């Protein structure tokens, strides 16, 4: 398990390669990458605030629970904070398991919990000012699945 909370960018390709390298037991590797999206147009930046100390604890607990629920060989969470431009990668998770069902479900579990149970708060900066991103009811509802 590796948990990284960082301000700087990460290299998806290098992380995916390092995570996948030399696995002979895991037949299935899933990655999820979140990207700053600018759907409406006009987004200048995304600011991500977090709670140093609690963030690392929360991510470790979420990953530990995923490893308890599914037969994972390994899992990875990287999450950035600070100021990001549209198109930049915010975070990624990766899971490795013998079977694809475990790898997929664990990755979705990690994402569902990251969305609503890890202490990050997003703020969108546009020409009109700054606005905190509201939590979505469907993200909270997604947790009832597990």
């Amino acid at each position, binding site marked *: 398990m590796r948990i990284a909370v960082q301000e700087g960018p990460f290299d998806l390709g290098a992380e995916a390669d390092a995570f996948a390298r030399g696995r002979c037991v895991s037949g299935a590797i899933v990655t999820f990458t*979140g990207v700053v999206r600018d759907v409406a147009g006009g987004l200048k930046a995304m600011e991500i*605030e977090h*709670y140093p*100390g*609690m963030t690392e*604890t*929360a991510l470790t607990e979420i990953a530990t629970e995923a490893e308890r629920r599914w037969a994972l060989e390994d899992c990875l969470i990287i*999450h950035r904070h600070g100021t990001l431009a549209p198109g930049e990668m*915010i*975070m990624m998770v990766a899971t490795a398991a013998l079977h694809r069902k475990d790898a997929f479900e664990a990755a979705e579990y990690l*994402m569902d919990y*990251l*969305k*609503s*149970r*890890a*202490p*990050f*708060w*997003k*703020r969108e900066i546009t020409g009109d000012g700054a606005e*905190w*991103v*509201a*939590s979505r009811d469907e993200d*909270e509802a997604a947790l009832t699945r597990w």
Partner: protein
Amino acid sequence: MDVLYFAWVRERIGLPREKVDADVATVMDLVEVLRAREDRYDAAFSDLSALRVAVDQQLADFDAPLAGVREVAFFPPMTGG
């Protein structure tokens, strides 16, 4: 104890953290003490359903006990990922 504020709670109250010495048994007691201080606190805590709380860096309820606690944090629902 240390009381921390994040996101719009931090903005509304106007500071990221402060020391609070009060004789409070639960998070809810602490909220009442803070609300009584100034309007900006009262405004920040006016709708508790829009707030989440962490006690010593673990998510908790508003009726969580504060005995022996070193750090309480208030913030809006999280938007990670």
